[in-house]
């Protein structure tokens, strides 16, 4: 397009453009989808088509199984957003800065194929709890979990907040983490794009150049600093250049193992209770 035609195009589209958005940055934000057909019931055939479309279109960012790659884990979004919610995100794209483009050009038929396939992922990580959540709450209360963990506004804050844990962790992960917490440290908040997704709650032992020794779990780290919290809850902000030795203590955690403290039934009940938290997020 030459300059004249380009300017003409700009002029002709100005009204529509202004109606579309102001300020200009909203152009890359989510756009509400126009009226579209009703949510179709998935069939084996449509799920297979959706799978093929997903693998060709979405898997590069969201992983082949939806568990995330460069983009976030989207397993469980069926429950979170519902079909119309997923349709809106695919149609209009993710939030500004999320990097997810709008796929409105797929057309509603293919968007629905994707909606149904993505919804079929089910729970993050898959699997269903077999225990009794009500009894699991009793186990939770009796085992001192709330000394370190918060649910709602109740409990301590040295461990992860569990208010929504059922919506973000699989049953298998919760089960394994109770038996061997050090080997199943959770990843840090994936929404913090500036930080790589490294395990939180990793235990460190640091020897400072003045001989002082600090042991604690990692709250944050970059190339020059390390933030630890010790067993007493004390924060330590460490300049790495002032340390003579920085050592990771693998498979260690402040959280004790419940391997020999709970029966299998109690463990399953506790997992079922945790899995029920935030399941409707």
């Amino acid at each position: 397009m030459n300059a004249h035609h380009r300017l003409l195009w700009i002029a002709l589209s100005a009204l529509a453009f202004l109606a579309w958005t102001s300020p200009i940055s909203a152009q890359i934000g989510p756009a509400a989808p126009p009226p579209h057909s009703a949510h179709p019931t998935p069939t084996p055939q449509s799920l297979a088509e959706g799978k093929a479309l997903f693998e060709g279109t979405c898997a590069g960012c969201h992983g082949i199984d939806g568990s995330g790659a460069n983009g976030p884990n989207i397993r469980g979004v069926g429950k979170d957003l519902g079909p119309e919610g997923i349709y809106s995100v695919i149609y209009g794209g993710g939030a500004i800065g999320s990097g997810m483009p709008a796929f409105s050009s797929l057309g509603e038929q293919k968007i629905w194929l994707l909606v149904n396939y993505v919804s079929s992922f089910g729970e993050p990580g898959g699997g269903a709890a077999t225990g009794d959540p009500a009894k699991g709450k009793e186990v939770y209360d009796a085992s001192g979990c709330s000394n370190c963990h918060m649910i709602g506004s109740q409990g301590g804050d040295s461990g992860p907040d569990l208010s929504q844990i059922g919506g973000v962790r699989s049953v298998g992960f919760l089960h394994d983490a109770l038996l061997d917490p050090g080997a199943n440290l959770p990843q840090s908040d994936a929404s913090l794009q500036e930080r790589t997704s490294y395990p939180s709650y990793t235990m460190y032992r640091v020897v400072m150049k003045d001989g002082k020794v600090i042991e604690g779990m990692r709250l944050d780290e970059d190339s020059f600093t390390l933030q630890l919290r010790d067993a007493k809850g004390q924060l330590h902000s460490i300049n790495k250049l002032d340390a003579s030795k920085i050592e990771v203590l693998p498979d260690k955690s402040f959280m004790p193992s419940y391997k020999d403290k709970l029966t299998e039934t109690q463990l399953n009940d506790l997992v079922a209770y945790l899995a029920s938290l935030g399941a409707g997020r």
Partner: protein
Amino acid sequence: MKTSRQRWILCGFALLALVLGSRAQSWAQDVTYDEILHSASHPQDWLTYGGNYASQRFSELKQVNTENVKDLKIQWVYQLKHQGIFESSPIVADGIMYVTEPPTTVTALDVRTGKPIWRWSAPLPPNLLTIGLFPTNRGVAILDDTVYVATIDAHLVALDAKTGAVKWTSEIGKNSQSVAITQAPLAIDGKIIVGMGGGEGGLRGYIDAYDAKDGHRLWRLYTIPTTGEPGVETWEGDSYKYGGATTWNTGAYDPETNTLFWGTGNPAPDWNGDARKGDNLYSCSLLAIDADTGKMKWYFQFSPHETHDWDAAEPPILIDAKIDGKMRKLVVQADRNAFYYVLDRETGKFIAGKAYAKQTWAQGLDANGRPIELPNNQPTTKGNLIYPSITGSVNWTSSSYSPLTGLVYVDTREQGAYYFKGHPEMEPNNPHDIGGGGGQKAVLGDAAYSAIRALDATTGERKWQFKMVGDSWTGTLVTAGNLVFCADAGGNFFALNAETGEPLWHIQLGNSVRANPITYEVDGKQYVEAAAGNSVFVFSLP
């Protein structure tokens, strides 16, 4: 007591300073080709994306050096008016910094204060297509009195450097067919060179030259041959028609031989190469192009029949250095596929190559530089762990080269990924059926890290490294003050000793630096710029 001769010299310097000062304060905005050509002797400005035509990101400025860098302080901060992924490397000319805000806004800043002088935003369609890339912009080009920007919806726009007024606009490609551009154009003598992106949308890649005065297209070079052309046999069936090989990052230019050096992206679909058997020329290659005609002089393919998304879009670096005691004209590239390459830039002949990061896909390189591939290095339906990950050992960020140390500084990523093979779902020129043909699940955790690696420019041998926590997306700048500037994923902008890698200074900027830093000089003072989060930070000595 000063002699008469010394007084005259001092007067001369004072006059020169006055002339330079008044020139800057008057905002002349007239950057001739000759000035860009001799940018090494004009280090107070930063006139091209790569700092000079050789794309070395080396500055002769040395006021800030290994002794005093610890005293660097923030002088001003500019906060973007348009939020998003900010990856812009500014141009600085005659007292003005031209920075681009996502998705395509050009802002001219008073380089002394950071105050905006003018701002221009590209009008974009509501159904903008950005497939396989972030809607961002990495910078502008400048020539004479005009600033050139390539828009995310694939137009080349010429703006008056003084006012931001549009002089002309040319369409580079159809965004409705997924052509999208994030790169800074390259201005050479009377021409604006620009490539394109969007290779996951079923495209055939190309690179264009436009007349700097009126924007008409002078030539187009397709990066995939068509029927009857040599190389088309490296694509099975008609897969050449939509095989990608885009040209999405800024290249280098050798004025002596009038040759452009430009990298190409992956063949499409990415992770499933079943329907495109063959080497898939000229994807994942470095192209040497006659700047007058657009004819390809030679090519060198880093990753034949690529299936891991390892584009060769990293900016190549032109250097002159001794090989076996003889001065040679070289082009070097730390590739996304984890190998560092040294080529003769006149012939494209392979001279040396070596892995600079962990890789598990090739045994090494043969005498011609072709990878000797290992078995089982392909994506599978169940996932196959291969190093590096799809973002590669380096991605779009620039490496730098110091002629003082003879080292190339690479912001390296160490990370593997499980590669999955899916269905290609690729149709010719049809963005509605974009096809990646699979995907990856990157290995996360502390095992994934970044490092600044200093490589011998002529061999690729590692001299030192500075390890970083997290996934750095910054690129390096090196100066005659023997400093390498870069940043980690955690928001630390820092300076290293270019000879040893020793950290000498760092500052926490509160967000990651996703853009190549630059340096320049105003009123006799050297400044260093870094773009962190959605802000431009500028530093100098007190």
